[in-house]
């Protein structure tokens, strides 16, 4: 039983990370109809920035805050400088740019900080934190931080005029322009926010997966899966999808382990987690193509 709870808890912690990255993907998707393949590498790069700041002597939380701000600026700049000129470009050109960004960030991180795996600290105290035996302090911290970030984003989008303007710009750019919303800037802001949320995810996960240029590769896949499961155009769905995928992958591995213990036959284990997660995604999409919480988009022709 305790092991079962542990698996759920660690699924929640992983899910929180997937939820953040999935949300970053969705934020850009709803306003541009594109999936930013470089989202994971941007988060990884941000994580390196925070590592660098810490190695210059800053405390974890100062570096964390500064990194979130720097990442925001980085996101805005990428949109303004690289994607702005491609506004009317065909989808494939934009995809190529995303893949290019992915490669650029990956190799820049390698060039600046080398490909050697680095340890990344956890800001959460080792003792008196977490629920003994079930969830570790870092895992609990990750879930808490994620919930705070998600809560802040929710309040921002739901209750502030700027958040409203961003939602309007994403939903109907032309109408938004007609009420005086500077839609181009809203897109850039969206990129900034997505980069910031990604940075939070990167910094939180680095303690678990260790810091290296390819650390976000698998996570981006999971996040993409989460976003699809939740409904790619639904931010709340993406978050739910993140937690669902996180828990699901652990449950599958757990069930496989139990089965092996009981029968001695190895069918499935930790190694197949990603495969199983993706199979489940394919299954969900076959049965419910718009995702669990997505809406079917009807196009008038």
């Amino acid at each position, binding site marked *: 039983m305790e092991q079962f709870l542990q698996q759920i808890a660690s699924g929640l912690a992983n899910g929180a990370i997937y939820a953040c990255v999935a949300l970053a993907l969705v934020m850009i998707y709803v306003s541009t109809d594109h999936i930013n393949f470089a989202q994971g590498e941007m988060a990884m790069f941000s994580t390196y920035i925070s590592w660098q700041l810490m190695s210059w002597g800053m405390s974890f939380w100062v570096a964390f805050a500064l990194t979130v701000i720097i990442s925001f600026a980085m996101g805005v700049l990428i949109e303004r400088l690289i994607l702005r000129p491609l506004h009317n470009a065909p989808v494939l050109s934009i995809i190529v740019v995303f893949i290019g960004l992915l490669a650029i960030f990956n190799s820049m991180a390698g060039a600046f900080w080398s490909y050697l795996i680095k340890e990344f600290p956890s800001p959460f105290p080792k003792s008196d934190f977490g629920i003994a035996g079930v969830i570790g302090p870092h895992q609990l911290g990750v879930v808490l931080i994620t919930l705070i970030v998600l809560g802040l984003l929710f309040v921002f989008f739901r209750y502030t005029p700027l958040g*409203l303007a961003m939602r*309007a710009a994403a939903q109907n750019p032309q109408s938004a322009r*007609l009420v005086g919303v500077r839609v181009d800037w809203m897109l850039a802001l969206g990129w900034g926010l997505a980069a910031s949320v990604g940075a939070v995810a990167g910094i939180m996960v680095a303690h678990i997966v260790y810091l290296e240029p390819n650390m976000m590769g698998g996570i981006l896949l999971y996040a993409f899966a989460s976003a699809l499961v939740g409904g790619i155009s639904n931010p709340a769905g993406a978050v739910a999808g993140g937690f669902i995928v996180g828990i699901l992958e652990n449950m599958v591995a757990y069930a496989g382990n139990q089965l092996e213990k009981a029968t001695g036959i190895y069918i499935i284990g930790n190694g197949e987690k990603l495969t199983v997660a993706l199979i489940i995604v394919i299954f969900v999409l076959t049965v419910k193509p718009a995702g669990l919480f997505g809406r079917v988009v009807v196009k008038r022709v």
Partner: protein
Amino acid sequence: MAALLEVSGLKAFYGQTQSLYDVAFDIPMGGITTLLGANGAGKTTTLRAICNMVRTDGTIRFDGKNIRGMATEEIVRQRIAHVPEGRGTFTTLTVDENLRIAAYTRKDKQAVKDELERVFVYFPRLKERIQQQAGTLSGGEQQMLAIARALMLKPRLMLLDEPSFGLAPLIVLEIFRILRRINEEEKVSILLVEQNAALALDLATHAYVLETGKVVMSGPSDVVKNDENVRKSYLGY
């Protein structure tokens, strides 16, 4: 009467295709002007050209200032409100949000609240639906929402693209009555594009007739109404 909007030599292009040829017209301050014309004559394009939503050439002066080539959102901030073809509802936002978005740059919260109340005087039905998702409103209510949203911009000029489109005759009459009140009480000048020429000529003080991207006739609406060609082509008697 001084002209609020002066358009001259206006050309508009969709890609390589030119769809307006030297269109010229004035909109008097405080008046209601209508643009008539068959499908494809360039009525919608003219409205879109004013707000720089198509590629244009020529001059468009608003209150003496050339606004041609300004970004759409900046033109809107000069207090030109455009109620687009198809209403442009933010379907997933609530009625309240649809209205507030038009005031999002304004700092004064009380002023925005007062503004909302003022708009609800014209559209009491929207007040009843304030927390409803705008996409669930009826067509007539969405058209009202679009006009109300435009009103939230405190416009000096309102551009209306076929407000009667797809609506029941009674609703259309109601909307046109409200437009007249807005014109009189809010001192908003109106440029109205309409398929329903009879209705438009009743409301408007001035009329222009467009044919294949050119102005072919203009004058006070009484005169235009009695013109034989207009009667035959647009009024059907």
